[in-house]
Structures are given as C-alpha cells and as structure tokens.
C-alpha cells in the first residue's frame, strides 16, 4: 500500500471539512476522488500534502506517518501535487519553472536542467522552454504545473482538478499525457475532479465524498450506480437536466 489514510479529521473552527475519512491507494494505480462542491476534496488533498494540519487521524505514506508534516518535507518523501487554481512562477521561464521542481532531487544545476528538459519533452512542452508561462494558454500552464510536479520525481502525484477549464479536446490530450507519464515514470496518480467524464474514463477506482464524509468507493462503473452517490452528486445534476 502506497498511501493509507486512517480516520482523518479536519475541522476549521467547528466546521468539519473532513470527517473520519479512511482510504487506501495501491502502488501503480490511478485513483479518483469525486464529490459535489464543498465535499472536502481539496481539504483532504491539502491535509495529505502538508498544507493543512489534520485535526486527527493518520496518513501513512510507504508506512511512515506523514500527517502534520510541512509541505516541503512531504514533497521530499515523494508526494507531488498540482493546484486547483494555477500556481505558477510568472517571472521564471517554462524551463526554469520545471527546473525548480528538479532541484528537489539534485544540487547540480546542469543535472536539474537536463532533468527539466526530459520532462518538457515528455509533456510536449520543449518548444515553449524559453517562454514565460503567463504568455501561454491555460491548458499549457496546467501542463507546466504538471511538469514541475513531475520533475520532483514523485512516487505519488496528486492532481487537484487538472482538467477543470479545459475544452474536450484538451481534456482528451491531458488523459493521454497522464497515462503516458504514469507508464514512463512508474507513478501512482490520485486525482480530484469535477469533470465526471474525465475522472470516470481514467480512474481505476474512485472514492466519493459528500459533505466532508466518504460515502462510497469502488470501480467507477459500479460507484455511479449506488443510490447514495446519485443522490449526493449526480442526483442534483440529473434532476435539473
């Protein structure tokens, strides 16, 4: 088991954002996390990645309890993440953005540059290496963020709404890229998503959250048939449609 979350609780001054969440992610799988707005998906991500200190519970990564560790230590043990809103370094070029990620594993600037260039080729970004990220479209910026996370050589890559704001074609490209990097880099992926089509086609297992609780888990095609899930998530959408 690569990641094992046990009874995780996160409260913000009385508001329970995550109540007693337990889940497991096996090495080499693509795990999805879905749920309506405000379900606590991003809070869970932030707890794992060290951006929030959990109120209670344990987060085991390769057997080590990383709950409450600061973000930079979590990154060092091999958990990388992307952000929901894009958080890119605007005054560094695309290549330099990815290099900063590569410096997580090396002190040598030339090695970091080589590592970054490898990642850029892998993500079809090599032609943008010398440009500044803010001059590029959102879909490319998302890929730069992905590349930056990838350059830290993670074991677990957590993607927070990587397909949000992408058009169907770009979403399809993203799916292919994710599958490709997972194979080439021997990764485990954990993604949250609003775009159901995206998460359902790519994930091998999904966890469903609603109002801070885990309400279902399993293979995507089975999860969507569960009454509770339809009620919590699909229900409101399908009711309107």
């Amino acid at each position, binding site marked *: 088991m690569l990641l094992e979350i046990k009874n995780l609780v996160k409260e913000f001054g009385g508001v329970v954002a995550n109540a007693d969440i337990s889940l497991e992610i096996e090495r080499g799988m693509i795990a999805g996390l879905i749920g309506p707005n405000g379900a606590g998906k991003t809070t869970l991500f932030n707890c794992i990645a060290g951006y929030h200190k959990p109120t209670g519970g344990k987060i085991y990564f390769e057997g080590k309890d990383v709950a409450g560790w600061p973000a*930079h230590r979590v990154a060092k043990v091999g958990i990388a993440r992307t*952000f929901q809103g894009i958080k*890119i370094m605007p005054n560094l070029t695309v290549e330099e953005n990815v290099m900063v990620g590569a410096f997580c594993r090396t002190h040598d600037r030339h090695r970091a540059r080589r590592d970054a260039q490898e990642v850029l080729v892998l993500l079809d970004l090599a032609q943008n290496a010398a440009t500044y990220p803010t001059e590029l479209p959102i879909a490319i910026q998302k890929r730069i963020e992905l590349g*930056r996370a990838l350059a830290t050589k993670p074991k677990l890559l957590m993607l927070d709404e990587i397909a949000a704001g992408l058009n169907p074609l770009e979403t399809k490209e993203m799916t292919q890229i994710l599958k490709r990097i997972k194979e080439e880099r021997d990764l485990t992926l954990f993604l949250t998503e609003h775009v159901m089509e995206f998460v359902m086609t790519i994930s091998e297992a999904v966890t469903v959250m609603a109002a801070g609780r885990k309400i279902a888990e399993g293979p995507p095609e089975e999860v969507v048939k569960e009454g509770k899930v339809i009620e919590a998530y699909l229900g409101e959408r399908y009711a309107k449609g």
Partner: protein
Amino acid sequence: MNKVLQVLRDIFSFADRPRTEWIGFIIFVVMVLLFPWLVKSSYARSVMIKFLLFALFGLGWNLIGGYGGQVDLGQAKNVGFGAYATALMMVWWKIPFWLTVIPGMIFATAESFAVAYPMFRLRGHYFAIATLCVALVWKELFVFWDWTGGARGVEIPIRPTPDFAYMQFGSAIYYHYFIFFLFITQLLFMNWFRKSKLGYELQAVRDNEEAAASLGINVTNTKVTAYCTTAALGAIGGSFMAVYYLYIDPDFVMPLDLSILIAMTVMVGGAGSIWGPILGAAVLIPLDMYLGAWLGAQKRLGIDFMIYAMIMMIIAAREPKGIWGIFERIRRRGMR
C-alpha cells in the same frame, strides 16, 4: 578539475543573450579600468568610486530584494557593521584591513540570523517596517555606546607612508581599482548565485510560496539564508567605506537614507536582474552627487528627496521592473 572548470564556466556565463551581455560587460569593464586615466577631475573620480560602491551595495541587496522579493529597508545596519568592524579593529588592535573584512561579514550574518526567524513571520509591508526598525535600533545603539565612539564616531589615523596592509595610499586611483575589484567579484558571485539551486529556490519563493513548498522548498529557511547572505555582502562595502573615508559615524554609515538609497538604486535599475543594480546606481549616484553640488546648502531642504520620490513614482507606475525592464521589453518586441 572538471568540476572547477564547470564552476568557472557557470560564474562567467551571462544568461539569456550571452553575446549582447558579454559585449556590454566588456565595454563596461574597459571603461571603468581606463576611467582614472581619461578623467582628471577629482570630483568626477569620487563620483565614480561612489557609483561603484553603490553598485556593489545594490548587487548585494538585489539578492534579498530582487531575487527574494523581500523589501529589506535595513541594509544600512550591515554596512555599519562592516564599517565599524574594520574601523574599530584597525584602531584598537592595529589589525591589517584585510583581516577585518571577514569578521565584519560574520558579525552581520550572525546578527541577521538572530533576528531573521521572528522577522520572517511577517510579510510584505510589515516585513519592510520590521527591517527598518531593527536597523534604526542598531544605529541608536551605536550612537549611545561609548565603546563604539558614540555619535562622534571613529577616526582611522593616517599613516605617514602608504601602506597596503592598512589600505592607505597616496592616490585615489588605488581605491578606484580596489572597489572595482570588489564590485566585479560580487557581480560574478551574483551571476553564479542566480542560476544556482538556492537562487532558483529563492525566485520560486518570491513568485509563489505555496507552489515553492510543494516542490520541496523550505520557504522560511530559504528566505533566512538569503537574508543572511545579503547581510554579509553589505558588510564588505561597509569595510571599504571605513578605509576610504577614514572617518565613520552612525549618521554616515548606518542611516535610514542609506538603506533607502540602496533599495532605490536596485528598484530603479531593475530588481531581480543582474544588471539592474548597476544601471540604477549609474543613474542615481551621479544625480545625487551633482544635484548635491549644484543645490549646495539648499539640498538640506529636501529637494533631492523630492526628485528621488518622483523618479520612484514614475518607475513604480510605468515600469515596475525598472530600467532593465524597459530594455527587456524592447528586446522582446524586437524578437516578435
């Protein structure tokens, strides 16, 4: 051996448009080297030395202020530490100048380390105010203490004969070349630094702290390291001031004006670029000196500060990346 060559190559590789920047760099070096032979006016020579001194200060401050994006308005305290370390050690124990530079740097670094962690709990304007306060407290302490000479300051006795060990020469030309040597060393250090691991980490922290942390960067430690390094670099210039002016007091080496002028040269020239501090000093220092000479006593009325403030406002409104930012924009437009 290969490793040494590689580091040398890193030190001398000037970024993005290697050829243009190398040509500019060489023209600049030749001009400064020939300057004392072409210009005979001693006032112009002293302007040149002051320009190099402030370019040196700017290069150091650029580390925390430009690459780190932290507005530190207390660099004068580090200048003061360097100046006092040199002056006091030379006066008390007759230690040669060369052995006093490093103790000054060490003291500045240690002091910065001691105050850095509480200060970096603050951000933005609050951090700027904190740095300003710490520097003012130190200045007042140096005025108050007797052992530092108090408000009267410290005078380094003039030696009967020129003496290399104590940095006393018959002609200002020697100081010109010495400050130029310090300046070039610092320029090359900064050129190496900005492409180093810490350099990139610092820039990442400046641009986005949360993203930086997700890439394994300890945000606070990175800022603290940068803050301490900047302090050490500031102290070098301070040591030079002590032997060049031969007389220092707290109002001269650690005032608020000095902190602000250092920060301003960098911002006017272009914070976060290697050439920015040099351009800024090239504009502001001659302006300051000639304006002072021209206005004479009226200078005290603060006319020079009004002119600075106007330049600052124009820069802030029109081109936040300073003079170098204008060059960059023209260059990028040319590429399209």
